[in-house]
Structure formats: C-alpha cells, structure tokens
C-alpha cells in the first residue's frame, strides 16, 4: 500500500486529543491513563511488600500500610483491570475489525473517557484524604469512614457509568455496524469476546453503582439496610457488591481470552481450533460468572444450598475456561509457528491462566473456602489471573503495535523483558499461594513468625517483575522514537484491521474493505 500521508495521529496538540471522538485516539488516551494508574498502583503494591520486610508494628505504620493497600486495590481494579482491554485495544480495533468507521456512539465514547478520568481524580482525592478501605468497602465497617469514603463512592459510581457506556457502545457497534458481507463466522474471537464482556458491563455494573449509592445513603441518612445496629443486614451489601465484582473479574478475563485465541491462530498460521466452541464458551463464561457471585459468601453464613449451587456453577465455569485454553493449545499443535513477542506473551498468559483458575476453583470448593478465603491464597489466585490478563494485554499490544504505531519494535529484547516479567510474577505470587494455604492471612500488616521467608521471596519477585515491566515500557517508547517503518500486515493475518492503512486513517477505511470470504469464493 502506498505511503500514508494522513492518519489518525496526524493532528497534534492537546485540544485535538481531548476533543477527538475518534475511537483510536480515545483508546490511546485510555491506554496512557490506565498505564499511569497501574504504575502508581504497582508502586503502592511494592511499597506494601517492602513495608512488611521492615516489620513495622507502630500505629503510624499500620495506617500507612492500609492506605497503600487501599490505593493498590482500588487503582488496580477499578481504574486498570475493569476497563483495561476493552477501553484500550477494544476501542482501537473493534471498529476496524468490523470494517466500521468508528464505534456506534462516538461522542458517548468520549464521555466515557471523561467519566473514567473524573473517577481517577475522585479516587486520588479519596486516597489523598487518607482512605483505608479496600475496594470492596464492606459494610458496616465502611459506614464509620468519613470524607475519603464519600469520595470513593463518587469515584466508583463515575467509573461504573463509564463502563456501562462502553458496554452499550460496543454491543450496538458489533450488532449493527458490521461491514456488508462480514458474516458472524468471520468475526475475530476478539470481537466476540468483547461482546460477551459487554453483557457483563451492561447488566452487572449497574449494581456496583447501586450498592455504593446505597452505602452512602445508609451512612448519611441511616436507612437501616446494611447497618445491624439499625436492623439492617451487612450481608445484603455483599450480595449486591459481589453480583458485580464476581463477573467483573471475567469482564477482564474474556477480552484476554479473545486476544490469545486470535494471536495463537495468526502466529501458528492455522485457523482457530474450535471457533464455534470458543465463541459459545465466551457467552457461557459471561452468564455463569454473573450467576455465581455466591462463591464469595460461602464463609459469610450463606445457606448450604446456595453455596452448593454457586460452587457447582463455578466448577462448570472453570471447566469452560479450560475448554478455551485447550483450544489454544490445539491451534498451536503442528502449526507453522512464527516465534515473536506477541506469541511469547500469549504463551506466558496460557501458563498463568490455569494456575489462577485452579486456585480460584479451590477457593470455590465449600470445604476449602472457609480455610482459604481470608488468606493470602486468595490474593495469589487473583494475581495469577490478573497477571495473565496483563500478559494478554501486552500480547495484544505487541500483535497490533505495527498497525497502531506504524513502527517495528525490538522483538528479541521484548521477549527477554517478557521472560523477566514472567519469572518475576511467578516468584512473587507462587509463595503467596503456598503461604496462604499454610494459613497466612491476607491484608496483614505484620510478618508472622515462621512465614518471613515467603515474604522476602515475594519482594524479590516483585522487584524482578518491575524490572521486566520497565523493560517492556522502555522498548515501546524506543519503538515510537526510533522504530523502523512497519509493513501493513507483518503477520499475514486475515482480519479486517490489517486491510487498513498503517497507521489507520481517521475514518479507518476510505472504501469498504474487501471480505476475505468474498476473495476466497471469487
């Protein structure tokens, strides 16, 4: 394709970015914003681990520890994990993959970014004022908190609205804005996974805002819903909260599944193995995750019948996730593999997902739940899953980077940085699984006798992981500054985004893209 003179990056100046309704520009703003939020949260997380090393038992040390924990959990979950892949890579590539010029509601999309940014500022205010609540804000403990808590509620509601807008936007785009001739069976797995995640975004997120708003009203007016002193039931809040928070994890996981499914297929030069099965799995994961929120209430006095049911549903959910993982392996089997950063990062995710999923399954076995749910084991499980999501996000970034930036990136050094990150994350979180299974409680500000070794190993792992992550970020920056010009379709992929110019122009395609099925039949 000819040299591209005008593309989505051509216009410069801060105003041109803030006013833009181009989903690609919004995606990049999200990517940078979420990157900053994640790095800050990471610093808080490492701070926690270092604080544990000094074994500081003073009251002031406790306060700092819980503030850092609050910061880490809130920023990582609400500002990074929940919007992560849909808001960045989804916004950028969904319209391109559908052959559309933009998302269905471009101005609403920009509004969703503004809401996210407002949520970031409110969260900062809350943390600055000394918030010590974790992201769950469980009642009745949260009801005694003051100004920081109020700010946190507003941050959560704003971020929730942003997520719902994205979900509605993506659903309408996928259902109504596909290019003519693009059949359902031509959609890449990534687009399907975004659709499945959008179901959670639209139908589970309202309860998050609702639950937090009720919490605020309970605090201000004494509604007597959650506060046992006023006749309320603290578990009621947990029911509402986990109805969102359980599927929220899968809202982050699903697009990751989509990215890996597509990447392994392109990089092994084979069609996706079990395409229909994977698509059905995505929707099954979406529905089952919404239905299995009771898994978090097993040790909080939920009835045995309800616990059995949710435990059963979650086991099916995990089995379905493994169906996807096996499909990726089957796609790779006997493929003509091109080993590059995108594939290596996908493989790391493929290794980390099963560990996290099996640990999550263990947490949902009723007899183990009461032992494990309050321990560091649950932390390890979550971080394995979120580590896998991070690897998937980076895999997607490496896969699409030539199209996004029009630049090549140093593949070998990237793989090295990825390996460092992988080793670091495993050294950090494997000891947490083990120590947790041996009884170390989560969110504890002191090192417990005989458990110090695992904490030291965790810190070392954390530092190695940060080194790897810094390497990845530096390589991306170097690519932007000095990278050689990338080809239009370096991996030989067949989905529509690769038919756009490099980098894509603002309206994505100047003429309707030709379908590969049409090419095959003609």
């Amino acid at each position, binding site marked *: 394709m000819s040299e591209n003179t005008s593309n989505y990056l051509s216009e410069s100046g801060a105003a041109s970015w803030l006013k833009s309704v181009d989903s690609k520009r919004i995606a990049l703003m999200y990517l940078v914003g979420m990157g900053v939020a994640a790095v800050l949260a990471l610093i808080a997380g490492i701070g926690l681990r270092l604080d544990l090393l000094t074994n500081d038992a003073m009251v002031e040390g406790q306060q700092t520890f819980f503030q850092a924990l609050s910061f880490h959990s809130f920023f990582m979950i609400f500002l990074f994990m929940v919007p992560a892949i849909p808001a960045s890579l989804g916004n950028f590539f969904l319209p391109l993959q559908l052959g559309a010029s933009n998302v269905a509601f471009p101005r609403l999309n920009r509004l969703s970014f503004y809401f996210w940014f407002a949520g970031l500022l409110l969260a900062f205010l809350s943390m600055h004022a000394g918030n010590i609540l974790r992201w769950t804000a469980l009642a009745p403990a949260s009801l005694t908190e003051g100004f920081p808590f109020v700010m946190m509620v507003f941050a959560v509601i704003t971020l929730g609205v942003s997520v719902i807008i994205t979900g*509605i936007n993506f659903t309408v785009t996928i259902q109504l804005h596909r290019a003519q001739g693009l059949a359902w069976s031509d959609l890449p797995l990534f687009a399907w996974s975004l659709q499945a995640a959008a179901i959670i975004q639209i139908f589970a997120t309202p309860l998050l805002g609702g639950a937090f708003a009720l919490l605020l009203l309970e605090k201000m007016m004494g509604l007597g819903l959650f506060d046992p002193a006023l*006749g309320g039931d603290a578990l009621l809040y947990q029911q509402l909260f986990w109805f969102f928070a359980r599927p929220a994890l899968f809202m982050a996981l699903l697009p990751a599944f989509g990215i890996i499914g597509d990447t392994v297929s392109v990089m092994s030069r084979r069609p996706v193995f079990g395409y229909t099965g994977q698509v059905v799995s995505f929707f099954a994961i979406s529905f089952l995750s919404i239905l299995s929120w009771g898994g978090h209430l097993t040790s909080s006095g939920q009835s045995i019948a309800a616990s059995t049911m949710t435990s059963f549903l979650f086991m099916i959910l995990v089995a379905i996730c493994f169906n996807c993982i096996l499909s990726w392996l089957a796609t790779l089997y006997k493929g003509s593999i091109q080993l590059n950063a995108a594939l290596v990062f996908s493989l790391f995710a493929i290794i980390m997902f099963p560990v996290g999923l099996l640990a999550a399954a263990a947490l949902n076995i009723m007899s183990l739940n009461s032992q494990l749910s309050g321990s560091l084991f649950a932390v390890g499980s979550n971080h394995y899953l979120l580590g896998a999501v991070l690897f998937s996000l980076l895999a997607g970034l490496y896969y699409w980077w030539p199209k996004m930036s029009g630049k090549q990136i140093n593949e070998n050094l990237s793989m090295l940085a990825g390996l460092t990150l992988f080793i670091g994350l495993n050294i950090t979180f494997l000891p947490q699984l083990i120590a947790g299974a041996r009884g170390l409680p989560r969110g504890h500000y002191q090192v417990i006798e005989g458990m110090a070794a695992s904490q030291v190993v965790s810190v070392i792992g954390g530092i190695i992981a940060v080194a790897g992550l810094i390497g990845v970020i530096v390589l991306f920056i170097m690519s932007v500054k000095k990278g050689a010009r990338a080809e239009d379709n370096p991996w030989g992929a067949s989905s529509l985004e690769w038919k756009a110019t490099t980098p894509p122009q603002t309206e994505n*395609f100047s003429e309707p893209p030709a379908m590969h099925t049409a090419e095959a039949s003609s």
Partner: protein
Amino acid sequence: MTAIQAAQSSGLEPTQKRESAMFGIWLLIGAETVLFGSLFTLYTVLRLGNMNAFRQASRLIGDNGAVWATAYILLSTYAAAMVMRAVKKDNHFSLVGHLTLILIAGFFFLGNKYHEFSRLIKEGLLWPGLFSAPGFTGQGASQYSSIFFLINGLLLIHMVIGLFIAIRLTKRAMLYQYSSTNDTPIQLFARYWQLGVLVWFILFPLFYLI
C-alpha cells in the same frame, strides 16, 4: 458500493444512526431494569423478614392519593403511546397535544408525590434514622419506609429527567422540528418514559396493595 462509499465519507447513514439509537436505548433500559430489579429484590428480602410490620405500614401509607397517582401514570403512558403514533403519521397537533398531556400528567404525579411525602414526614413514617411514627414495635416499619423512599426516589429522579426532556421535545415539536423521517428523539423518549411507567406498576401493588 457507491452508496456505502457516500455513507462512509459523510459519517453514518441516517437509518443506521436511528437503528443504533433505538438499540442503545433498549440496552440502557436493560441496565436500568437491573438497577430497579436489585431494589425490588431488596424489598422482597426485607419483607420476608418483617411480614407483619410491612403489612401494617403499607396500610398506613396507602390511601386515595396512590390511586390518583396511578391514574396520572395511566394517562401519561397512553399519551406516550399516542406520541409515537402521531410522529409516525406526521400529525403535528396530535404530537404536540400528547406531549403536553405527558407534561400535565407528569407534573400532577410530582405534585401527588410531594403531598404523600410531606404526609409521611409529618407522621414520622421514615427510615430508621428519623422514624417517629407511634404504634410500631421493632424496626420493620422503618425499613419499609427506607425501601419505599429508595424506590420512589429513584423513580422520581427518572421522572424529573424525563419531564425535562419532554419540555425540550415539546418546544421543538411546536416548531415543526419532528416528522416521520426525523422522529428518533421522540421514539427514544417514549420508550424511556414507559420504563418509569413499568416501574410504577410493579411498585404500586407492592407498597400500597399487599
């Protein structure tokens, strides 16, 4: 092909824009349904725990006012349906007339609620923090009030937003800005309004009749 090219260069086709907006409003209504649904679930849970107190409190709250409120809502839902029909048939007078009818019914509804709320405040039938109504034992009745004010309050927020939109639409309709080919805002509004109506028809028996 040329049609698509033209559409792509000028943004989206009008029909595609319209279809997107229609589908989008249904998804929004879906999300809202989950939100209201969670409050009705909350109601069920609280009622199961306080059967007698809820029955006693609902007898105190229920009076002819609620019947009138239902009448206003019925009038507005009829008008909203007629608005959709009028704009499709390009019937200008019917459109403006029925939009005005929605406004009248809506404001009567708000007035009705104002009276009801002030009566409840006077009688002290409020949430636990401010409950002072005589003749109740335990905290059941105050929880009834909590959930009553929550669901009614959320519905009222929706109604007020709806009425603001209705005022804007009526102004524009008077200026002949809507027609059968340009009716998307009217159609979206009518659907949104009916969501509020639906909530009232679930709320009414739960709080006033049983």
